[in-house]
Protein backbone atom coordinates (compact mmCIF):
# COMPACT_ATOMS: atom_id res chain seq x y z
CA UNK A 1 0.00 0.00 0.00
CA UNK A 2 1.40 3.40 -0.90
CA UNK A 3 2.04 5.65 2.00
CA UNK A 4 2.09 9.41 2.06
CA UNK A 5 5.55 10.68 2.96
CA UNK A 6 4.15 12.88 5.69
CA UNK A 7 2.11 10.25 7.49
CA UNK A 8 3.28 8.82 10.77
CA UNK A 9 4.05 5.09 10.71
CA UNK A 10 1.70 3.19 12.96
CA UNK A 11 3.41 0.96 15.48
CA UNK A 12 0.50 -1.26 16.25
CA UNK A 13 -0.78 -2.17 12.86
CA UNK A 14 -2.52 -5.26 14.18
CA UNK A 15 -4.85 -3.05 16.20
CA UNK A 16 -8.34 -3.51 14.79
CA UNK A 17 -9.15 0.19 14.89
CA UNK A 18 -6.54 0.91 12.25
CA UNK A 19 -7.86 -1.64 9.90
CA UNK A 20 -6.78 -1.27 6.33
CA UNK A 21 -9.95 0.25 4.76
CA UNK A 22 -10.18 3.15 7.21
CA UNK A 23 -6.49 3.81 6.82
CA UNK A 24 -6.93 3.95 3.14
CA UNK A 25 -9.79 6.40 3.54
CA UNK A 26 -7.71 8.63 5.81
CA UNK A 27 -4.93 8.56 3.27
CA UNK A 28 -7.29 9.44 0.50
CA UNK A 29 -8.59 12.33 2.59
CA UNK A 30 -5.09 13.67 3.10
CA UNK A 31 -4.26 13.32 -0.57
CA UNK A 32 -7.53 15.06 -1.42
CA UNK A 33 -6.56 17.90 0.90
CA UNK A 34 -3.04 18.20 -0.44
CA UNK A 35 -3.85 18.02 -4.15
CA UNK A 36 -7.32 19.51 -4.47
CA UNK A 37 -6.37 23.19 -4.08
CA UNK A 38 -4.22 22.77 -7.16
CA UNK A 39 -6.87 20.86 -9.04
CA UNK A 40 -9.33 23.69 -8.47
CA UNK A 41 -7.03 26.39 -9.84
CA UNK A 42 -5.61 24.23 -12.63
CA UNK A 43 -8.47 24.57 -15.16
CA UNK A 44 -8.25 28.33 -15.00
CA UNK A 45 -4.49 28.38 -15.35
CA UNK A 46 -4.41 25.97 -18.26
CA UNK A 47 -6.85 28.06 -20.29
CA UNK A 48 -5.22 31.29 -19.11
CA UNK A 49 -1.75 30.23 -20.16
CA UNK A 50 -2.93 29.20 -23.63
CA UNK A 51 -5.22 32.15 -24.40
CA UNK A 52 -3.63 34.90 -22.33
CA UNK A 53 0.00 34.37 -21.43
CA UNK A 54 1.29 32.58 -24.48
CA UNK A 55 0.18 35.33 -26.91
CA UNK A 56 1.76 37.99 -24.71
CA UNK A 57 5.07 36.21 -24.64
CA UNK A 58 4.91 35.36 -28.32
CA UNK A 59 4.38 39.04 -29.16
CA UNK A 60 7.86 39.67 -27.80
CA UNK A 61 9.24 36.95 -30.08
CA UNK A 62 7.42 38.34 -33.12
CA UNK A 63 8.59 41.87 -32.37
CA UNK A 64 12.20 40.73 -32.83
CA UNK A 65 11.56 39.37 -36.32
CA UNK A 66 10.62 40.44 -39.77
CA UNK A 67 7.07 39.16 -39.96
CA UNK A 68 4.27 39.78 -42.43
CA UNK A 69 0.55 39.19 -42.55
CA UNK A 70 0.90 37.16 -45.74
CA UNK A 71 4.58 36.27 -45.87
CA UNK A 72 4.87 34.90 -42.36
CA UNK A 73 8.05 34.73 -40.31
CA UNK A 74 11.19 36.26 -41.75
CA UNK A 75 14.67 37.03 -40.46
CA UNK A 76 15.64 37.81 -36.91
CA UNK A 77 16.16 41.57 -36.77
CA UNK A 78 16.87 42.13 -33.10
CA UNK A 79 15.56 45.47 -31.95
CA UNK A 80 15.31 46.62 -35.56
CA UNK A 81 11.53 46.92 -35.49
CA UNK A 82 11.69 49.10 -32.40
CA UNK A 83 14.32 51.30 -34.01
CA UNK A 84 12.23 51.73 -37.15
CA UNK A 85 9.10 52.55 -35.16
CA UNK A 86 10.90 55.10 -33.01
CA UNK A 87 12.05 56.85 -36.17
CA UNK A 88 8.55 57.11 -37.63
CA UNK A 89 6.90 60.49 -37.37
CA UNK A 90 3.54 58.73 -37.21
CA UNK A 91 4.53 56.96 -34.01
CA UNK A 92 5.24 60.24 -32.23
CA UNK A 93 2.02 61.78 -33.55
CA UNK A 94 0.10 58.73 -32.28
CA UNK A 95 1.84 59.02 -28.93
CA UNK A 96 0.94 62.71 -28.68
CA UNK A 97 -2.69 61.98 -29.61
CA UNK A 98 -2.95 59.14 -27.11
CA UNK A 99 -1.60 61.23 -24.26
CA UNK A 100 -3.70 64.23 -25.21
CA UNK A 101 -6.96 62.27 -25.45
CA UNK A 102 -6.08 60.42 -22.25
CA UNK A 103 -5.55 63.63 -20.28
CA UNK A 104 -8.55 65.41 -21.79
CA UNK A 105 -10.80 62.52 -20.85
CA UNK A 106 -9.51 61.29 -17.49
CA UNK A 107 -8.95 64.53 -15.63
CA UNK A 108 -12.50 65.88 -16.09
CA UNK A 109 -13.80 62.35 -15.67
CA UNK A 110 -12.35 61.98 -12.19
CA UNK A 111 -13.22 65.51 -11.09
CA UNK A 112 -16.83 65.16 -12.25
CA UNK A 113 -17.07 61.67 -10.74
CA UNK A 114 -15.91 63.04 -7.38
CA UNK A 115 -18.48 65.80 -7.57
CA UNK A 116 -21.34 63.46 -8.51
CA UNK A 117 -20.32 60.97 -5.84
CA UNK A 118 -20.52 63.68 -3.21
CA UNK A 119 -23.98 64.57 -4.53
CA UNK A 120 -25.11 60.95 -4.31
CA UNK A 121 -23.59 60.66 -0.85
CA UNK A 122 -26.74 61.87 0.88
CA UNK A 123 -29.84 60.35 2.36
CA UNK A 124 -31.68 60.52 -0.93
CA UNK A 125 -35.14 59.33 -1.70
CA UNK A 126 -35.11 56.58 -4.33
CA UNK A 127 -31.39 56.10 -3.86
CA UNK A 128 -31.02 53.19 -6.26
CA UNK A 129 -32.84 55.09 -8.98
CA UNK A 130 -30.31 57.94 -8.94
CA UNK A 131 -27.40 55.54 -8.77
CA UNK A 132 -28.72 53.62 -11.76
CA UNK A 133 -29.21 56.95 -13.50
CA UNK A 134 -25.51 57.76 -13.54
CA UNK A 135 -24.69 54.24 -14.74
CA UNK A 136 -26.82 54.27 -17.91
CA UNK A 137 -23.95 55.26 -20.26
CA UNK A 138 -21.93 52.26 -19.09
CA UNK A 139 -24.21 49.83 -20.96
CA UNK A 140 -23.70 51.65 -24.25
CA UNK A 141 -21.04 50.03 -26.39
CA UNK A 142 -18.13 52.41 -27.14
CA UNK A 143 -18.94 51.88 -30.81
CA UNK A 144 -22.50 53.07 -30.19
CA UNK A 145 -21.31 56.07 -28.18
CA UNK A 146 -18.88 56.90 -30.93
CA UNK A 147 -21.55 56.87 -33.64
CA UNK A 148 -24.04 58.87 -31.58
CA UNK A 149 -21.46 61.50 -30.69
CA UNK A 150 -20.14 61.34 -34.22
CA UNK A 151 -23.50 62.69 -35.31
CA UNK A 152 -23.30 65.42 -32.66
CA UNK A 153 -19.78 66.41 -33.71
CA UNK A 154 -20.31 66.15 -37.46
CA UNK A 155 -18.61 69.02 -39.31
CA UNK A 156 -21.64 69.70 -41.47
CA UNK A 157 -25.14 69.55 -40.05
CA UNK A 158 -23.96 68.22 -36.71
CA UNK A 159 -25.88 69.02 -33.55
CA UNK A 160 -22.98 70.73 -31.77
CA UNK A 161 -22.26 73.09 -34.65
CA UNK A 162 -25.95 73.81 -35.22
CA UNK A 163 -26.32 74.80 -31.58
CA UNK A 164 -23.11 76.85 -31.68
CA UNK A 165 -24.40 78.74 -34.68
CA UNK A 166 -27.71 79.44 -33.00
CA UNK A 167 -25.98 81.19 -30.13
CA UNK A 168 -23.94 83.12 -32.67
CA UNK A 169 -20.64 81.29 -32.56
CA UNK A 170 -18.92 79.99 -35.64
CA UNK A 171 -18.93 76.29 -36.47
CA UNK A 172 -15.95 74.25 -35.34
CA UNK A 173 -14.18 71.92 -37.76
CA UNK A 174 -14.16 68.96 -35.39
CA UNK A 175 -12.33 66.67 -37.78
CA UNK A 176 -9.72 69.11 -39.05
CA UNK A 177 -7.42 70.09 -36.23
CA UNK A 178 -6.08 67.77 -33.56
CA UNK A 179 -7.36 69.62 -30.50
CA UNK A 180 -11.04 69.85 -31.49
CA UNK A 181 -11.03 66.18 -32.48
CA UNK A 182 -9.33 65.17 -29.24
CA UNK A 183 -11.92 67.06 -27.23
CA UNK A 184 -14.74 65.34 -29.10
CA UNK A 185 -13.20 61.90 -28.62
CA UNK A 186 -12.36 62.57 -24.97
CA UNK A 187 -15.95 63.57 -24.30
CA UNK A 188 -17.12 60.19 -25.63
CA UNK A 189 -14.75 58.32 -23.37
CA UNK A 190 -15.63 60.42 -20.34
CA UNK A 191 -19.34 60.07 -21.02
CA UNK A 192 -19.16 56.30 -20.80
CA UNK A 193 -16.98 56.06 -17.66
CA UNK A 194 -18.00 58.93 -15.37
CA UNK A 195 -20.93 57.04 -13.86
CA UNK A 196 -18.90 53.91 -13.21
CA UNK A 197 -16.19 55.84 -11.39
CA UNK A 198 -18.81 57.84 -9.51
CA UNK A 199 -20.19 54.67 -7.96
CA UNK A 200 -16.75 53.43 -6.98
CA UNK A 201 -15.97 56.74 -5.27
CA UNK A 202 -19.40 56.80 -3.65
CA UNK A 203 -18.76 53.38 -2.11
CA UNK A 204 -15.50 54.68 -0.68
CA UNK A 205 -17.19 57.82 0.69
CA UNK A 206 -19.74 55.72 2.50
CA UNK A 207 -17.01 53.71 4.13
CA UNK A 208 -15.55 56.82 5.78
CA UNK A 209 -16.46 56.66 9.49
CA UNK A 210 -19.05 59.22 10.36
CA UNK A 211 -17.37 60.42 13.53
CA UNK A 212 -14.59 61.95 11.45
CA UNK A 213 -17.10 64.35 9.93
CA UNK A 214 -18.68 65.00 13.32
CA UNK A 215 -15.30 65.85 14.73
CA UNK A 216 -14.63 68.16 11.80
CA UNK A 217 -17.94 69.91 12.35
CA UNK A 218 -17.11 70.40 16.03
CA UNK A 219 -13.86 71.99 14.90
CA UNK A 220 -15.88 74.36 12.76
CA UNK A 221 -15.06 72.99 9.34
CA UNK A 222 -17.45 73.96 6.56
CA UNK A 223 -18.61 71.62 3.80
CA UNK A 224 -15.69 72.46 1.52
CA UNK A 225 -13.18 72.03 4.30
CA UNK A 226 -14.77 68.72 5.30
CA UNK A 227 -14.41 67.50 1.75
CA UNK A 228 -10.83 68.70 1.44
CA UNK A 229 -9.54 67.59 4.83
CA UNK A 230 -11.61 64.50 5.60
CA UNK A 231 -13.12 62.97 2.47
CA UNK A 232 -10.19 63.39 0.12
CA UNK A 233 -7.51 61.86 2.36
CA UNK A 234 -9.81 58.98 3.29
CA UNK A 235 -10.58 58.40 -0.38
CA UNK A 236 -6.96 58.17 -1.40
CA UNK A 237 -6.68 54.40 -1.86
CA UNK A 238 -9.83 54.38 -3.98
CA UNK A 239 -8.65 57.37 -5.98
CA UNK A 240 -5.43 55.51 -6.67
CA UNK A 241 -7.48 52.58 -7.93
CA UNK A 242 -9.68 54.78 -10.13
CA UNK A 243 -6.72 56.70 -11.54
CA UNK A 244 -4.80 53.51 -12.29
CA UNK A 245 -7.70 51.80 -14.03
CA UNK A 246 -8.48 54.86 -16.10
CA UNK A 247 -4.80 55.11 -17.02
CA UNK A 248 -4.70 51.51 -18.17
CA UNK A 249 -7.95 51.88 -20.11
CA UNK A 250 -7.40 55.42 -21.36
CA UNK A 251 -4.05 54.73 -22.99
CA UNK A 252 -5.48 51.79 -24.95
CA UNK A 253 -8.24 53.83 -26.53
CA UNK A 254 -9.28 52.52 -29.96
CA UNK A 255 -13.01 52.25 -30.68
CA UNK A 256 -13.93 55.92 -30.42
CA UNK A 257 -11.10 57.43 -32.51
CA UNK A 258 -11.27 54.59 -35.03
CA UNK A 259 -14.87 55.41 -35.87
CA UNK A 260 -14.44 59.17 -35.58
CA UNK A 261 -12.93 59.71 -39.01
CA UNK A 262 -14.48 59.40 -42.44
CA UNK A 263 -14.35 56.22 -44.48
CA UNK A 264 -11.05 56.44 -46.26
CA UNK A 265 -9.01 58.34 -43.74
CA UNK A 266 -10.63 56.65 -40.72
CA UNK A 267 -8.11 53.84 -40.41
CA UNK A 268 -5.26 56.35 -40.36
CA UNK A 269 -7.02 58.66 -37.92
CA UNK A 270 -7.66 61.46 -40.37
CA UNK A 271 -5.72 62.99 -43.22
CA UNK A 272 -2.71 63.93 -41.13
CA UNK A 273 -3.18 61.23 -38.46
CA UNK A 274 -4.59 63.92 -36.20
CA UNK A 275 -6.57 61.44 -34.13
CA UNK A 276 -4.66 58.21 -34.60
CA UNK A 277 -3.91 56.60 -31.23
CA UNK A 278 -1.20 54.06 -30.49
CA UNK A 279 -3.63 51.15 -30.64
CA UNK A 280 -4.93 52.41 -33.98
CA UNK A 281 -1.34 52.65 -35.16
CA UNK A 282 -0.78 49.05 -34.05
CA UNK A 283 -3.84 47.86 -35.93
CA UNK A 284 -2.96 49.92 -38.98
CA UNK A 285 0.56 48.52 -39.13
CA UNK A 286 -0.51 44.92 -38.59
CA UNK A 287 -3.49 44.74 -40.90
CA UNK A 288 -3.38 47.82 -43.09
CA UNK A 289 0.25 48.14 -44.03
CA UNK A 290 1.79 45.02 -45.47
CA UNK A 291 5.46 45.87 -45.09
CA UNK A 292 6.66 43.82 -42.13
CA UNK A 293 3.36 44.64 -40.43
CA UNK A 294 3.27 42.04 -37.67
CA UNK A 295 6.82 42.59 -36.53
CA UNK A 296 6.29 46.33 -36.21
CA UNK A 297 2.80 46.00 -34.75
CA UNK A 298 4.22 43.74 -32.04
CA UNK A 299 6.91 46.30 -31.32
CA UNK A 300 4.21 48.98 -30.93
CA UNK A 301 2.28 46.66 -28.59
CA UNK A 302 5.30 46.38 -26.31
CA UNK A 303 5.99 50.11 -26.46
CA UNK A 304 2.38 50.76 -25.48
CA UNK A 305 2.68 48.36 -22.57
CA UNK A 306 5.85 50.05 -21.36
CA UNK A 307 4.15 53.43 -21.63
CA UNK A 308 1.26 52.20 -19.47
CA UNK A 309 3.63 50.84 -16.84
CA UNK A 310 5.63 54.07 -16.88
CA UNK A 311 2.61 56.35 -16.49
CA UNK A 312 1.07 54.13 -13.83
CA UNK A 313 4.35 54.29 -11.90
CA UNK A 314 4.49 58.08 -12.23
CA UNK A 315 0.91 58.28 -10.99
CA UNK A 316 1.68 56.17 -7.96
CA UNK A 317 4.76 58.22 -7.19
CA UNK A 318 2.89 61.51 -7.45
CA UNK A 319 0.06 60.29 -5.27
CA UNK A 320 2.46 59.00 -2.65
CA UNK A 321 4.34 62.29 -2.72
CA UNK A 322 1.15 64.31 -2.37
CA UNK A 323 -0.33 62.21 0.42
CA UNK A 324 2.34 60.87 2.75
CA UNK A 325 3.26 63.25 5.52
CA UNK A 326 2.05 66.51 4.05
CA UNK A 327 -1.23 68.26 3.54
CA UNK A 328 -4.38 66.44 4.33
CA UNK A 329 -3.68 64.00 7.10
CA UNK A 330 -1.87 66.61 9.17
CA UNK A 331 -4.65 69.08 8.80
CA UNK A 332 -7.03 66.67 10.48
CA UNK A 333 -7.74 68.20 13.82
CA UNK A 334 -6.85 66.60 17.11
CA UNK A 335 -10.48 65.83 17.77
CA UNK A 336 -10.70 63.97 14.52
CA UNK A 337 -7.57 62.02 15.20
CA UNK A 338 -8.77 61.04 18.66
CA UNK A 339 -12.01 59.88 17.11
CA UNK A 340 -10.12 57.76 14.64
CA UNK A 341 -8.03 56.20 17.32
CA UNK A 342 -11.05 55.38 19.43
CA UNK A 343 -12.56 53.71 16.45
CA UNK A 344 -9.65 51.32 16.47
CA UNK A 345 -8.50 52.19 12.99
Amino acid sequence: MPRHPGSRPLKNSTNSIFSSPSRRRAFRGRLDRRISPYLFVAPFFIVFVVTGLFPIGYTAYVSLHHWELLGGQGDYVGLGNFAVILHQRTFWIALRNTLSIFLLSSVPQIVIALFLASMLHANLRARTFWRMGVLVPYVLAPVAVSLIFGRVFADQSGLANALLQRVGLGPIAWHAGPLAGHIAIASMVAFRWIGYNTLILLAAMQAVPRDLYEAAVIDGANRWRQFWSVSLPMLRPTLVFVILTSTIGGLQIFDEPRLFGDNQAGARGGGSNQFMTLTMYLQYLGWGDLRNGFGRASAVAWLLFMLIVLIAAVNLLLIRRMGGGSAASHRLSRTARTATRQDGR
Partner: protein
Amino acid sequence: MTSLPMIAQTAGKGAARAEARRRARLGSGRRPTWRTYTVLTLTLVASVLPLYYTFLIASTDMPHLNRDSVPSLIPQGEFLTNLRRVLDSEQVDFSLALRNSLVIAVITSVSVVFFATLAGYSFSQFSFRGRRTLLGFIVATMAVPTQLGVVPLFMLATELGWQNKIVSVIVPGLVTAFGVFWMTQYLDSALPRELVEAARVDGCSMLRTFWSVAWPAARPAAAMLALFTFIGSWTNFFWPFIVLGSGNPTLPVAVALVKTSLTTDYPLLLAGVALTTAPLLLLFVVTGRQLVTGIMQGALKG
Protein backbone atom coordinates in the same frame (compact mmCIF):
# COMPACT_ATOMS: atom_id res chain seq x y z
CA MET B 1 -17.65 45.19 11.31
CA THR B 2 -19.00 41.88 10.12
CA SER B 3 -19.67 41.85 6.41
CA LEU B 4 -23.22 41.40 5.19
CA PRO B 5 -22.52 38.23 3.20
CA MET B 6 -20.98 36.75 6.33
CA ILE B 7 -24.16 37.50 8.25
CA ALA B 8 -26.20 35.98 5.45
CA GLN B 9 -24.11 32.82 5.70
CA THR B 10 -24.19 32.45 9.46
CA ALA B 11 -27.43 34.02 10.67
CA GLY B 12 -29.52 33.72 7.53
CA LYS B 13 -30.78 35.99 4.80
CA GLY B 14 -33.40 37.72 6.95
CA ALA B 15 -30.80 38.76 9.49
CA ALA B 16 -28.63 40.14 6.71
CA ARG B 17 -31.51 42.16 5.32
CA ALA B 18 -32.33 43.55 8.74
CA GLU B 19 -28.72 44.49 9.28
CA ALA B 20 -28.55 46.17 5.88
CA ARG B 21 -31.64 48.20 6.76
CA ARG B 22 -30.19 49.12 10.12
CA ARG B 23 -26.98 50.35 8.52
CA ALA B 24 -28.90 52.27 5.88
CA ARG B 25 -30.97 53.97 8.55
CA LEU B 26 -27.91 55.01 10.47
CA GLY B 27 -26.95 56.61 7.20
CA SER B 28 -23.61 58.06 6.37
CA GLY B 29 -24.70 60.95 4.21
CA ARG B 30 -26.00 64.42 4.85
CA ARG B 31 -29.52 65.58 4.23
CA PRO B 32 -30.05 66.38 0.56
CA THR B 33 -31.09 69.85 -0.53
CA TRP B 34 -33.05 70.83 -3.63
CA ARG B 35 -29.72 71.61 -5.24
CA THR B 36 -28.64 67.99 -4.88
CA TYR B 37 -31.78 66.82 -6.64
CA THR B 38 -31.33 69.41 -9.39
CA VAL B 39 -27.78 68.28 -10.09
CA LEU B 40 -28.83 64.63 -10.09
CA THR B 41 -31.77 65.29 -12.38
CA LEU B 42 -29.52 67.13 -14.83
CA THR B 43 -27.07 64.23 -14.71
CA LEU B 44 -29.84 61.77 -15.40
CA VAL B 45 -31.01 63.84 -18.36
CA ALA B 46 -27.44 63.99 -19.69
CA SER B 47 -27.11 60.21 -19.33
CA VAL B 48 -30.33 59.44 -21.15
CA LEU B 49 -30.32 62.23 -23.73
CA PRO B 50 -27.90 60.53 -26.16
CA LEU B 51 -30.18 57.50 -26.13
CA TYR B 52 -33.19 59.62 -26.92
CA TYR B 53 -31.21 61.46 -29.58
CA THR B 54 -30.40 58.09 -31.16
CA PHE B 55 -34.08 57.26 -31.23
CA LEU B 56 -34.94 60.67 -32.70
CA ILE B 57 -32.47 60.35 -35.55
CA ALA B 58 -33.38 56.71 -36.12
CA SER B 59 -37.01 57.64 -36.55
CA THR B 60 -36.46 60.38 -39.11
CA ASP B 61 -35.26 60.28 -42.70
CA MET B 62 -32.50 61.98 -44.66
CA PRO B 63 -34.59 64.80 -46.22
CA HIS B 64 -35.78 65.80 -42.77
CA LEU B 65 -32.31 65.60 -41.32
CA ASN B 66 -30.82 67.69 -44.13
CA ARG B 67 -33.38 70.40 -43.59
CA ASP B 68 -32.65 70.83 -39.90
CA SER B 69 -29.78 69.26 -38.00
CA VAL B 70 -31.38 69.98 -34.63
CA PRO B 71 -34.12 67.36 -34.57
CA SER B 72 -37.48 68.20 -33.10
CA LEU B 73 -37.99 66.53 -29.74
CA ILE B 74 -41.00 64.67 -31.05
CA PRO B 75 -39.95 61.54 -32.93
CA GLN B 76 -41.03 61.04 -36.53
CA GLY B 77 -42.65 57.80 -37.55
CA GLU B 78 -39.84 56.18 -39.52
CA PHE B 79 -38.26 54.12 -36.74
CA LEU B 80 -39.69 50.74 -37.74
CA THR B 81 -38.96 51.39 -41.40
CA ASN B 82 -35.34 52.18 -40.58
CA LEU B 83 -35.08 49.15 -38.33
CA ARG B 84 -36.39 46.96 -41.13
CA ARG B 85 -33.87 48.54 -43.49
CA VAL B 86 -31.07 47.67 -41.09
CA LEU B 87 -32.19 44.08 -40.68
CA ASP B 88 -32.61 43.67 -44.44
CA SER B 89 -29.32 45.39 -45.18
CA GLU B 90 -27.47 43.86 -48.10
CA GLN B 91 -24.00 44.69 -46.86
CA VAL B 92 -24.16 43.35 -43.34
CA ASP B 93 -26.33 40.60 -41.93
CA PHE B 94 -27.64 42.16 -38.71
CA SER B 95 -29.75 39.25 -37.56
CA LEU B 96 -26.67 37.06 -37.81
CA ALA B 97 -24.73 39.70 -35.88
CA LEU B 98 -27.36 39.74 -33.15
CA ARG B 99 -27.19 35.96 -32.86
CA ASN B 100 -23.38 36.00 -32.80
CA SER B 101 -23.24 38.64 -30.09
CA LEU B 102 -25.70 36.67 -27.99
CA VAL B 103 -23.90 33.34 -28.38
CA ILE B 104 -20.49 34.83 -27.59
CA ALA B 105 -21.75 36.77 -24.58
CA VAL B 106 -23.61 33.81 -23.06
CA ILE B 107 -20.80 31.29 -23.53
CA THR B 108 -18.07 33.56 -22.18
CA SER B 109 -20.17 34.61 -19.18
CA VAL B 110 -20.86 31.02 -18.15
CA SER B 111 -17.27 30.00 -18.74
CA VAL B 112 -15.68 32.91 -16.91
CA VAL B 113 -17.90 32.28 -13.89
CA PHE B 114 -17.16 28.56 -13.91
CA PHE B 115 -13.37 28.84 -14.01
CA ALA B 116 -13.27 31.83 -11.70
CA THR B 117 -15.44 30.25 -9.01
CA LEU B 118 -13.36 27.08 -8.93
CA ALA B 119 -10.12 29.02 -8.67
CA GLY B 120 -11.54 31.63 -6.29
CA TYR B 121 -12.77 28.91 -3.94
CA SER B 122 -9.34 27.39 -3.78
CA PHE B 123 -7.51 30.70 -3.37
CA SER B 124 -9.85 31.94 -0.65
CA GLN B 125 -10.18 28.77 1.41
CA PHE B 126 -6.91 26.89 1.38
CA SER B 127 -3.35 27.77 2.09
CA PHE B 128 -1.12 25.89 -0.27
CA ARG B 129 2.38 26.31 -1.54
CA GLY B 130 2.55 28.98 -4.27
CA ARG B 131 -0.83 30.48 -3.40
CA ARG B 132 0.40 34.02 -2.83
CA THR B 133 2.63 33.96 -5.88
CA LEU B 134 -0.12 32.75 -8.18
CA LEU B 135 -2.63 35.26 -6.83
CA GLY B 136 -0.17 38.13 -7.12
CA PHE B 137 0.57 37.02 -10.64
CA ILE B 138 -3.13 37.12 -11.56
CA VAL B 139 -3.51 40.62 -10.17
CA ALA B 140 -0.45 41.76 -12.09
CA THR B 141 -1.77 40.47 -15.41
CA MET B 142 -4.95 42.52 -14.98
CA ALA B 143 -2.86 45.55 -15.89
CA VAL B 144 -1.67 44.06 -19.17
CA PRO B 145 -3.51 45.47 -22.18
CA THR B 146 -5.31 43.12 -24.58
CA GLN B 147 -3.39 44.70 -27.44
CA LEU B 148 -0.30 42.91 -26.26
CA GLY B 149 -1.65 39.59 -27.47
CA VAL B 150 -3.59 40.31 -30.66
CA VAL B 151 -0.88 39.60 -33.21
CA PRO B 152 -0.16 36.04 -32.00
CA LEU B 153 -3.86 35.44 -31.42
CA PHE B 154 -4.53 36.40 -35.01
CA MET B 155 -1.76 34.13 -36.27
CA LEU B 156 -3.17 31.31 -34.15
CA ALA B 157 -6.68 31.91 -35.46
CA THR B 158 -5.42 31.82 -39.03
CA GLU B 159 -3.44 28.66 -38.36
CA LEU B 160 -6.52 26.90 -36.96
CA GLY B 161 -8.78 28.19 -39.73
CA TRP B 162 -10.81 30.18 -37.20
CA GLN B 163 -10.75 33.46 -39.07
CA ASN B 164 -14.27 34.81 -39.55
CA LYS B 165 -15.57 32.26 -37.05
CA ILE B 166 -16.90 33.28 -33.67
CA VAL B 167 -14.82 30.59 -31.93
CA SER B 168 -11.91 32.93 -32.37
CA VAL B 169 -13.70 35.49 -30.22
CA ILE B 170 -15.06 32.99 -27.69
CA VAL B 171 -11.83 31.17 -26.83
CA PRO B 172 -9.73 34.19 -25.72
CA GLY B 173 -12.70 35.25 -23.59
CA LEU B 174 -13.13 31.96 -21.75
CA VAL B 175 -11.24 33.12 -18.66
CA THR B 176 -10.37 36.47 -17.15
CA ALA B 177 -7.89 37.29 -14.42
CA PHE B 178 -10.38 39.80 -13.07
CA GLY B 179 -12.95 37.03 -12.58
CA VAL B 180 -10.62 35.02 -10.38
CA PHE B 181 -9.65 38.09 -8.39
CA TRP B 182 -13.31 39.00 -7.93
CA MET B 183 -14.44 35.56 -6.75
CA THR B 184 -11.44 35.19 -4.44
CA GLN B 185 -12.21 38.52 -2.80
CA TYR B 186 -15.86 37.70 -2.40
CA LEU B 187 -15.48 34.17 -1.07
CA ASP B 188 -12.80 35.37 1.30
CA SER B 189 -15.35 37.54 3.08
CA ALA B 190 -18.57 35.62 2.44
CA LEU B 191 -17.55 32.05 3.11
CA PRO B 192 -16.20 31.36 6.61
CA ARG B 193 -13.34 28.91 6.53
CA GLU B 194 -14.94 27.22 9.54
CA LEU B 195 -17.89 26.25 7.37
CA VAL B 196 -15.67 24.51 4.86
CA GLU B 197 -13.71 22.93 7.68
CA ALA B 198 -16.94 21.64 9.25
CA ALA B 199 -18.00 20.06 5.99
CA ARG B 200 -14.59 18.41 5.76
CA VAL B 201 -14.88 17.03 9.30
CA ASP B 202 -18.25 15.63 8.37
CA GLY B 203 -16.48 13.64 5.69
CA CYS B 204 -17.25 15.64 2.59
CA SER B 205 -14.76 15.36 -0.23
CA MET B 206 -13.29 18.56 -1.63
CA LEU B 207 -15.54 18.41 -4.65
CA ARG B 208 -18.62 17.76 -2.52
CA THR B 209 -17.67 20.65 -0.24
CA PHE B 210 -17.35 22.90 -3.23
CA TRP B 211 -20.71 21.93 -4.60
CA SER B 212 -22.76 22.00 -1.39
CA VAL B 213 -21.03 24.71 0.63
CA ALA B 214 -18.99 27.04 -1.57
CA TRP B 215 -21.20 27.32 -4.64
CA PRO B 216 -24.36 28.39 -2.75
CA ALA B 217 -22.30 31.05 -0.96
CA ALA B 218 -20.70 32.20 -4.21
CA ARG B 219 -23.91 32.60 -6.18
CA PRO B 220 -24.57 36.34 -5.67
CA ALA B 221 -21.02 37.23 -6.72
CA ALA B 222 -21.17 34.74 -9.57
CA ALA B 223 -24.32 36.38 -10.90
CA MET B 224 -22.66 39.81 -10.83
CA LEU B 225 -19.54 38.48 -12.52
CA ALA B 226 -21.70 36.93 -15.23
CA LEU B 227 -23.43 40.27 -15.71
CA PHE B 228 -20.18 42.21 -16.04
CA THR B 229 -18.74 39.63 -18.40
CA PHE B 230 -21.88 39.74 -20.53
CA ILE B 231 -21.72 43.51 -20.87
CA GLY B 232 -17.99 43.42 -21.54
CA SER B 233 -18.44 40.83 -24.26
CA TRP B 234 -21.41 42.59 -25.83
CA THR B 235 -19.59 45.90 -26.12
CA ASN B 236 -16.22 44.44 -27.13
CA PHE B 237 -14.93 45.76 -30.45
CA PHE B 238 -11.17 45.71 -30.96
CA TRP B 239 -10.47 41.98 -31.31
CA PRO B 240 -13.75 40.99 -33.07
CA PHE B 241 -13.15 43.84 -35.52
CA ILE B 242 -9.75 42.41 -36.37
CA VAL B 243 -10.60 38.75 -36.60
CA LEU B 244 -14.20 38.78 -37.87
CA GLY B 245 -15.02 40.05 -41.33
CA SER B 246 -18.21 41.48 -42.76
CA GLY B 247 -19.43 37.94 -43.45
CA ASN B 248 -19.83 36.97 -39.80
CA PRO B 249 -19.75 40.04 -37.51
CA THR B 250 -20.87 40.80 -33.98
CA LEU B 251 -23.19 43.76 -33.47
CA PRO B 252 -20.55 46.43 -32.79
CA VAL B 253 -18.55 45.21 -35.78
CA ALA B 254 -21.68 45.24 -37.94
CA VAL B 255 -22.51 48.81 -36.97
CA ALA B 256 -18.95 49.89 -37.58
CA LEU B 257 -19.04 48.28 -41.03
CA VAL B 258 -22.22 50.14 -41.94
CA LYS B 259 -20.56 53.35 -40.82
CA THR B 260 -17.49 52.75 -42.96
CA SER B 261 -19.56 51.92 -46.03
CA LEU B 262 -22.38 54.48 -46.05
CA THR B 263 -21.61 57.32 -43.73
CA THR B 264 -24.30 59.63 -44.97
CA ASP B 265 -27.38 57.60 -44.10
CA TYR B 266 -27.55 58.52 -40.43
CA PRO B 267 -31.12 57.35 -39.78
CA LEU B 268 -30.11 53.88 -40.90
CA LEU B 269 -26.87 54.01 -38.94
CA LEU B 270 -28.51 55.05 -35.70
CA ALA B 271 -31.24 52.45 -36.14
CA GLY B 272 -28.36 49.97 -36.10
CA VAL B 273 -27.02 51.61 -32.96
CA ALA B 274 -30.46 51.30 -31.38
CA LEU B 275 -30.55 47.61 -32.28
CA THR B 276 -27.12 47.13 -30.70
CA THR B 277 -28.04 49.02 -27.55
CA ALA B 278 -31.58 47.85 -26.88
CA PRO B 279 -30.77 44.36 -25.54
CA LEU B 280 -28.26 45.69 -23.01
CA LEU B 281 -30.60 48.47 -22.03
CA LEU B 282 -33.27 45.89 -21.33
CA LEU B 283 -30.79 43.90 -19.26
CA PHE B 284 -29.90 47.11 -17.42
CA VAL B 285 -33.52 47.83 -16.54
CA VAL B 286 -33.86 44.37 -15.04
CA THR B 287 -30.47 44.03 -13.34
CA GLY B 288 -29.33 47.63 -12.86
CA ARG B 289 -29.70 47.33 -9.09
CA GLN B 290 -27.30 44.37 -9.04
CA LEU B 291 -24.86 46.22 -11.28
CA VAL B 292 -24.79 49.17 -8.91
CA THR B 293 -24.27 46.88 -5.92
CA GLY B 294 -21.60 44.96 -7.77
CA ILE B 295 -19.58 48.02 -8.69
CA MET B 296 -19.84 49.44 -5.19
CA GLN B 297 -18.91 46.18 -3.49
CA GLY B 298 -16.03 45.58 -5.85
CA ALA B 299 -14.77 49.06 -5.10
CA LEU B 300 -14.52 48.42 -1.38
CA LYS B 301 -12.61 45.21 -1.78
CA GLY B 302 -10.64 45.93 -4.91
